[in-house]
């Protein structure tokens, strides 16, 4: 890393524009998820005649899918680390693993949603149900977008354009991915593990 006077001077931070953009965006996302989580918390005991959160949550199942998402952060960082070493093969393997773990998490969410639906918790059942599905749905959409990004990285990798020198791209996708993971860390604790109201 040369101390290129042009690159690092008083007029800028010398940081990559793209990476800075992603961090700025993640700062903004905190307010988005904060709003959704607050909307959930305010509504969690407003379940009316529908199922209550404390009765319907399946903690063991959600624990497994949370664990899956958590481990996908590890594989994400391993894929970046591989690419930074120029190890294209391991980079692809870990990208694939991350995407698959993400997909597994989404699959788990779909399963959870259908179970809830069967048990009488529809989107319109109560303020609690609306808030729950909206919050976890928004998170699910974020994970899905992350999977799309990972797949795009893989496509470009197979086209030979994802190389060591583009590792920042993987790093930026990784930032997004880890952010979605930390949001889930929060959701898992506050929404699932903190005891919820029961009927």
């Amino acid at each position, binding site marked *: *890393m040369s101390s290129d006077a042009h690159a690092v001077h008083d*007029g800028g931070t010398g940081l990559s*524009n793209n990476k800075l953009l992603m961090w700025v*965006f993640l700062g903004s996302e905190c307010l988005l998820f904060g709003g959704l989580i607050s909307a959930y918390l305010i509504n969690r005991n407003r379940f009316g005649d529908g199922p209550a959160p404390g009765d319907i949550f399946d903690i063991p199942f959600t624990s497994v899918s949370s664990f899956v998402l958590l481990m996908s952060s590890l594989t994400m960082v391993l894929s970046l680390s591989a690419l930074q070493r120029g190890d294209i093969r391991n980079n692809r393997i870990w990208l694939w693993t991350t995407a698959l773990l993400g997909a597994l998490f989404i699959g788990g969410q779909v399963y959870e949603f259908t179970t809830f639906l069967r048990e009488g918790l529809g989107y319109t059942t109560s303020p609690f149900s609306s808030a729950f599905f909206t919050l976890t749905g928004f998170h699910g959409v974020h994970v899905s977008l992350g999977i799309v990004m990972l797949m*795009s990285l893989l496509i470009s990798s197979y086209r030979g354009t994802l190389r060591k020198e583009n590792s920042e*791209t993987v790093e930026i996708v990784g930032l997004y991915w880890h952010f979605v993971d930390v949001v889930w860390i929060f959701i898992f604790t506050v929404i699932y593990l903190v005891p919820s109201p029961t009927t």
Partner: protein
Amino acid sequence: MSEQTAELTVGGDAAQPLGVYSRPKGGGGWRDWITTVDHKKIGILYGGAALLFFFVGGFEALLIRLQLATPNGTVVGADLYNQIYTMHGVTMVFLVIMPMAAAFANYLLPLQIGARDVAFPRLNALSFWVFLAGGLFLNCAWLFGDAPDGGWFAYSPNTGVSFSPGHGMDFYAIGLQIAGIGSLISAMNLIVTVLNMRAPGMTLFKMPVFSWMILVVQFLLLFAVPVITVALFLLLFDRNFGSNFFNPEMGGDPLLWQHLFWIFGHPEVYILILPSFGIVSEVIPTFARKPIFGYEFMVFSGIAIGFMGWGVWAHHMFVSGIGPISVGAFTLSTMFIAVPTGVKILNWLATMWGGKIRLNAAMLFATGVVSMFTIGGLSGVTHSLSPADTQQTDTYYIVAHFHYVIFGGALLGFFAGFYFWWPKVFGHKLGETLGKWNFWTMIVGFNVTFGPMHILGLNGMSRRIDTYSPGFGFELWNMVATIGVFIIALGVLFFVLNVILSARRARGLPPEPPDPWDARSLEWFTPNPTPVHNFDEDIEVSSLDEFWHRKWTTDENGKVVRKATAAEVCQAGDAENVHLPSPSYWPIVMSAGMPLIGFGLMYNLWLCVPGAALVLMAIYAWVFEPPDDPDGPFGHGHDDHDDHGDAEAGDESASDEGAPQEEAASVE
């Protein structure tokens, strides 16, 4: 949208040949404008669109005042009136003041920090087109005869589907959502621009106050827009998918909407006013011929306002039934936000003190802001007293208050900016005589319109009423206010005339020489109008007001003496082979898809398919677009907008095998 596009940084060399991905090749005329990524053109587009919406919103204001001129008015019915006042508010806040601030920010921020462009030129174009799509989408509601009628604040459950069964509030929710995407992208872009693209030597504390205020505003947008995004999503889901967030019948809580809306809405107030504070802080020093008094205090008070703006939202809810402890806490936080605001006003006055004031149109408008905003600020203090607010809120006293802030503060500030920077943008000054007519009619009309509203409000006239009965003492001042609004309209007419006549007068004449005002900041280093590449070369900045310091110095007696003329200091603007980012089709294509998705959500979900297809196609094409157009007017090579910063990209291309590769930055 931005999160995907920001990420898909996929190398492009293998993907280029397909024709659709080639960059636009000049073409001239309107094609240049719709594909432009030049921050200056985008700034002009923002300004033009904002002015257009200003006329729409102004027309709505005329109708409101005509309806209220006399008791039992019959100009429009109750239903239409509710739509008009809602759209007047929404238009003026989201489609006039915010984009006009964006116009100034886009045009001037890169120039003031000595940059060639913003950090992400295509995202910049995208944010404009997305804003325009949102604005047009909102106003489409008129064509469908179903405009939003729940007020700009859209309190639930009145905006729920039971009480607002038409599509009006869907237009509101989706239109603002789209416009919000534009604001968020713009905010992220300008933050990165300020942090990474400043000229060598320009530390943050050598930035002009205007740039500072714009930076603070971008932070407010960055954190406030997601909150309204959440609120609008919840409203949309409630209305269209049967969720129960704000539906009390199912146990939902209408106050949740109020909290979310005002958590956004109060920072929004500062989003509206701070750009104007920035403009005033540039105009007053220039025409008082003194540096801004207490620069650090001006900057810190701006930051303090931005920061404190997050802790006062519930003063909009003093009467909504939140507990007395909340009311007390928000009473105090609201009061003390007056302190940094007062610091700003006093510093402006102190800047004028001991100066040599040239009272031209720009300066008149700027000092107009100082005194008119003071009225708005002081009436603001009177209703920060929560007990007093229980008498004042939702009356015309509040209407008077926020018009003194938004019209007397923000809008007059923009007019100051027009007169000040017009030569920079268009190469000629606006006429002074008409400018003074413009100022005096507007300031008189403004006070005749909104001054009486203080009295009306204290006399008990409620807001948002389509008519009132005689006998409450409202007749006189309503008539006066209606007369006033026509005086304002006359003032606007003078401005339009001025624009037309001064352009005609300037035709065939050489452009205004650089530095028509003996100005102080970096944008005046370049000729008028600004050349397409902004600066011939980087400017080494060593102080605040760098431009002024290159022209003037103080002799041993402390007297200010000239050391160089402006012509000697300014750049010629004739640099060649400056690499500039190439234009692109995709920002406008992507934004065109969004209203389609909106219409689809309202009328027929199938319409979402072409909309989503347009967006996806644009994202895809955006990512694989080649970095440059070899045949374009700007030469070739990499996009040059990252010339300050982005060390990695430069290092990588230098270090590796030299294969052609796309810089990360060009993919934005």
